[in-house]
């Protein structure tokens, strides 16, 4: 896998740059959506895949980012200022949402974040003075770069792609730093991590805040891409979808979200012919994947290229000891 890496990456790069010139506008829209959702999924992969903190609220952060950009640009702010502010707002809210994670774990944390997602949805729907409620917000301006407008689909795709490349490079660099090691330690054995001097509290909050920031930045691109946002776009559905992308792609693997988002965006389109049966087929595919390869599509690839090694034993846990 590692030896295949550089060439696979080069091919992916050529495809990502060349593809929009071959596709019709709707195809370009779909790959732009892929780029945007990949950013959100990278965020969730950071929180859930690397740091092991279950979050069912990533869709809410995409929503917060999207509404921030839509409202601020409508009020005349420049796009990139609104975009950064949306991310910053999500950093703060994500940090705050991390506090429950210091108390509860796993399923309980899933419920807490799920409740938060519902709360955000209700605020977006009911606070009409701010968000225009169920009517939604249409026609968010796309940014112009150095005097060039990115109103056409292909130009905006390249904006999304450039931001995806930038953010994934930053994430990759962070995961290589001692922080990356600390996040994995948080997932694998928080008690041991604490005894080795890791301030698990700060790293947990940071994992939530950074993951949420990426969600918010994805939202900042989602609004100008779709050109219409309403509260329903950011309900639990989107959070589940993002969760699916992370898990199907390969949770805790750097390129997992890229693959997962590709599947989650393209598969429904290819299966249009199956009409209503599409969800049944999709669900079955996911179940089969989870049964035979819980490490996702990338895990499947790794298995194929490195067949010898046995899976590591489950990490030992310390149930009797109390963490603080």
């Amino acid at each position, binding site marked *: 896998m590692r030896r295949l890496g550089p060439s696979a990456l080069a091919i992916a790069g050529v495809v990502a740059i060349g593809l929009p010139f071959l596709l019709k506008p709707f195809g370009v829209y779909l790959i732009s959506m892929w780029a945007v959702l990949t950013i959100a999924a990278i965020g969730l992969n950071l929180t859930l895949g690397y740091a092991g903190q279950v979050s069912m609220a990533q869709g809410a952060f995409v929503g917060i980012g999207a509404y921030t950009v839509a409202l601020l640009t409508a009020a005349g702010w420049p796009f990139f200022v609104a975009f950064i502010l949306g991310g910053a707002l999500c950093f703060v809210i994500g940090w705050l949402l991390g506090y429950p994670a210091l108390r509860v774990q796993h399923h309980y944390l899933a419920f807490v974040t799920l409740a938060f997602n519902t709360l955000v949805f209700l605020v977006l729907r009911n606070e009409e003075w701010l968000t225009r409620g169920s009517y939604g917000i249409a026609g968010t301006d796309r940014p112009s770069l150095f005097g060039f407008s990115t109103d056409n689909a292909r130009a905006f795709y390249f904006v999304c792609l450039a931001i995806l490349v930038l953010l994934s490079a930053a994430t990759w660099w*962070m995961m*290589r*730093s*001692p*922080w990356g*090691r*600390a996040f*994995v*330690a948080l997932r*694998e*054995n928080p*008690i*041991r*991590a*604490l*005894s*080795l*001097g*890791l*301030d*698990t509290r*700060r790293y947990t909050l940071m994992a939530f805040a950074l993951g949420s920031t990426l969600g918010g930045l994805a939202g900042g691109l989602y609004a100008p891409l779709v050109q219409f946002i309403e509260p329903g776009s950011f309900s639990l559905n989107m959070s589940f979808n993002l969760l699916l992308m992370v898990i199907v792609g390969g949770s805790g693997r750097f390129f997992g979200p890229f693959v997962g988002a590709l599947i989650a965006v393209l598969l429904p389109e290819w299966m249009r012919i199956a009409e209503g049966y599409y969800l049944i087929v999709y669900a079955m595919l996911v179940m089969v994947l989870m049964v035979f390869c819980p490490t996702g599509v990338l895990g499947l690839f790794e298995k194929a290229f490195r067949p010898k*090694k*046995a899976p*590591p*034993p489950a*990490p*030992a846990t*310390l149930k009797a*000891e*109390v*963490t*603080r």
Partner: protein
Amino acid sequence: MTAVLEVNNLSKRFGGIVAVDNVSFTVNDGDILGIIGPNGSGKSTLFNCVLGQLLPSDGTVRIDGQESTGMRPCDLNRLGVSRTFQLLQVFPQLSVRDNLILAGQEHQGSMTSRLFGRPDAGLGDAADQMIEFFRLSHLAEEQAGMLSYGQQKLLDAAMAFMAGPRLVLLDEPAGGVNLTMLGLLRERLQAYHAERKATFVVIEHQMEFVMALCTRVLVLAEGRIIAEGAPEEVRRNPAVIEAYLGH
């Protein structure tokens, strides 16, 4: 001279159960103190109170004369108090080398400087030396989860030493380790003690291991200290024999 570790009148109650009952002892620089006692005598609870994993109900803990009762484990660790666990505690998906770098990285700089610093936090060489010291060189790049139980125990101990601690608390380092590996572990602990003048506190059931390693032994039964002294002395103490074989 101030003691490295000073425990004063420490008690820990869980509801009506008194797990640790008014325990006091000191550990001086360079000591290897063994704590023995039957199952349920409060050894691990005592450890957890000293290490900040549990909050004691009463009493105080001092490290180098500085009160440390109620400090969080990560802050205590940065003061130079390190530990191993009774059950295996390594990070199975990280390589042996990364396990060791992780064990030292939080002692380097601030959180921000770690983000912008070198990927190995400048600890690559130190980790390799530690791997060499614990005879794990052939496994350096393996995932820790792939190692045998005994090798993981060695890694666990190595991690406790990575940050150059002042005081190391080892909770049943010999538990479940075969005799060959046990000999290596004991020999490495003694070598480390001789080289770095570190201070150890060891909880252990394996008597031979305790007798060979420790300079002083403390016996707990039902949460209280019933004997204290040189290993040979303690072994002959009728109260100790009674606690282990009695009832």
